[in-house]
């Protein structure tokens, strides 16, 4: 159709003639869209990212032997109320043990206060060391069963787990806790899959000077920064340790770590070494698990109190949702000898932080788009004002408000689409930049961002054009076509 041709001719000529203004519009839209794309791209991906990030604040499940845990129940729940974090985890279990031994030798009160000032490990092992208590095997978990943690219904939500066995050793003239663990162990599941898990990933807030621990090198160990300072140890130093059973081992310091907690006074070694020094082959004292969880709700809270109180349907819903309580329940199902305690504070804040982060991103995105719309509004208004004579003339020639609006809008949309496309591409890059700098990983931008981006371009340019279009419709030809 010829009419369409005239329209496009007018459109193209108008675009070409006001190149700079349209470039500015494109640039403004591009800026808004690039930021919005980046933020939304990050937001859609942020669930995993934030969860992975929060994992570094410690495990959110603590797996302990049933017997030990039962005795420690009271104590443990108090500890959680007073604000457990990932690091408290180890102490909780340590205390549980200590509590048990404390009861055994009738010095519960003294113990408890000692622990309260944060020296759980020392005390516990100290007791064990002077042989006043007998540790029975109910206080331990079999190392070779732990792989089952990765075989529960929510296996894929188990991000990481690591077992621990702490033994008090003689290092130089000091008694220090030596904790054996899996640093970064790959285990093969009966399903044929293999998973890599261990302490290094759980304790990602630790800073490490030197090499990370190596599960294959039992005589290499990590030393806490406090201990290293006291004993003048550095990566490569030698350190002789002697277990309660009299066994001596000459260790090489692979690295010095700083955790900011009690661990800085101790040694972290392979599980095998700790088992050897403690005379507990194949056993661990506790396991820390980091799981991705759904924020708790009413159902989860009721289930946590008493899973038996749920109706059939509620039960299914609960079981098939990655609540921290259902994951805990499933681990207890698959490992009957354990008791799993959620570390509630961490789990809750995890969900809350995620939601808050996403809300913040949405708000920022809306604000960004609002700013773009404002800037576009100015540009379009200037554009329309500059062309008022032309617009008045078109009206005088019989152009309807709709026809002129269509032309002006088409111009803005063409400019906006170019800007939006460029902005989208820049935004993809920006998202990666944010992902890499903030979360240390690539962001997988979801396809959903494209239609949302297109809608944003449309909304922003339309909203931005509205005031100018109103002025355009109100414009009287005689006001601009001064024929007098």
């Amino acid at each position, binding site marked *: 159709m*010829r*009419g369409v*041709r*005239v*329209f496009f*001719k*007018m459109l193209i*000529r*108008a675009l*070409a*003639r006001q190149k700079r203004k349209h470039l500015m519009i494109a640039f403004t839209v591009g800026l808004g869209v690039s930021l919005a794309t980046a933020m939304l791209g990050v937001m859609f991906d942020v669930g995993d990212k934030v969860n992975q990030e929060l994992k570094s604040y410690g495990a959110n499940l603590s797996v302990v032997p049933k017997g030990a845990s039962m005795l420690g129940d009271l104590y443990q729940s108090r500890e959680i109320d007073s604000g457990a974090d990932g690091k408290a985890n180890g102490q909780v279990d340590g205390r549980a043990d200590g509590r048990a031994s404390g009861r055994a030798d009738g010095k519960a009160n003294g113990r408890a206060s000692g622990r309260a000032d944060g020296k759980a490990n020392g005390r516990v092992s100290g007791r064990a060391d002077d042989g006043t208590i007998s540790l029975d095997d109910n206080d331990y978990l079999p190392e070779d069963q732990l792989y089952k943690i990765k075989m529960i219904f929510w296996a894929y939500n188990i991000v990481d787990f690591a077992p621990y066995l702490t033994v008090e050793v003689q290092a130089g003239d000091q008694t220090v806790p030596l904790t054996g663990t899996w640093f970064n162990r790959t285990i093969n599941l009966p399903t044929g899959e293999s998973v890599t898990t261990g302490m290094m990933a759980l304790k990602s807030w630790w800073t490490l000077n030197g090499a990370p621990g190596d599960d294959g090198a039992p005589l290499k160990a990590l030393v806490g920064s406090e201990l290293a300072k006291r004993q003048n140890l550095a990566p490569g130093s030698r350190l002789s340790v002697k277990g309660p059973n009299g066994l001596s081992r000459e260790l090489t310091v692979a690295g010095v770590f700083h955790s900011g907690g009690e661990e800085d006074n101790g040694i972290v070694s392979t599980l095998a070494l700790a088992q050897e020094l403690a005379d507990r082959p194949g056993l661990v004292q506790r396991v820390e698990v980091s799981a991705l969880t759904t924020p708790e709700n009413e159902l989860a809270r009721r289930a946590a109190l008493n899973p038996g109180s749920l109706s059939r349907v509620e039960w299914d819903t609960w079981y098939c949702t990655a609540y921290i309580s259902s994951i805990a329940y499933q681990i207890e199902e698959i490992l009957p000898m354990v008791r799993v305690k959620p570390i509630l504070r961490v789990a809750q804040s995890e969900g809350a932080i995620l939601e808050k982060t996403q809300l913040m991103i949405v708000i920022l995105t809306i604000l960004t788009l609002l700013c773009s719309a404002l800037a576009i509004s100015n540009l379009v208004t200037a554009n329309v004002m500059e062309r008022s*004579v*032309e617009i008045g*003339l*078109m*009206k*005088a*020639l*019989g*152009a*309807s*408000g709709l*026809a002129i609006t269509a032309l002006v809008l088409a111009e803005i949309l063409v400019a906006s689409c170019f800007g939006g496309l460029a902005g989208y591409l820049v935004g993809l890059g920006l998202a990666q930049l944010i992902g890499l700098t903030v979360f240390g990983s690539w962001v997988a931008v979801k396809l959903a961002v494209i239609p949302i981006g297109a809608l944003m371009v449309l909304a922003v340019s339309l909203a931005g054009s509205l005031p100018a279009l109103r002025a355009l419709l109100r414009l*009287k*030809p*005689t006001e601009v*076509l*001064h*024929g*007098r």
Partner: protein
Amino acid sequence: MSDNILDVIDVSKIYGPVKALQNVSLSVRPGEWLAIMGPSGSGKTTLMNIVGCLDSPSLGRVILDGLGLDQLTAGELTAIRREAIGLIFQQFHLIGYLNALENVMVAQYYHSLVDEAEALEALAKVGLADRAKHLPRQLSGGEQQRVCVARALINHPKLLLADEPTGNLDETNEGLVMDILHGLHRQGGTIIVVTHSPEVAQHAERVVVLEHGRVASDSRGADFSDPSGASQTA
């Protein structure tokens, strides 16, 4: 009612202290050719704008082709401009980024269908066949004015309102434009021409003189298409 194409009834246009038009009444029959003359500032353009549905009177009514303009919405007024009126502005006004041909085609586009051949022919009639692809700024004042004439006539308007259509033209081109107006007149078109030029006014059948916004004289000659006929001076 009346079978006039235009009835201006007791129209005043007041701009603050300035009374651009005062109680102007005027009736135009279909097919009539009217010249409006008068000194600068006498309200000629104001009257044309009101008749052309671009402006509304402060007082009084205008009835165009049986329709009371005061009763119509902005959209309906636009439709009348588009369908029935051809406008030639005193200061021509072309769209700067469109060439001469496209400027004519824009009027077709808003009116109905675009016909490039017809638009070219209209340009040829005003002697601009070889200027079709020139942008307004590449055209002289007279050439621009002739593009405006071509644009105003392209949709065969019932009523042509021409404000100084020959103000910038030499004799030859003035003759060209006058021939075109005669053509429209022969086809039954109604023409209102504002002019300072007695020669141009001579072509009209009737001359209305405005002074200080009032109708000073309204004289109907026999047939002014003959230059030797009676003439008025402003």
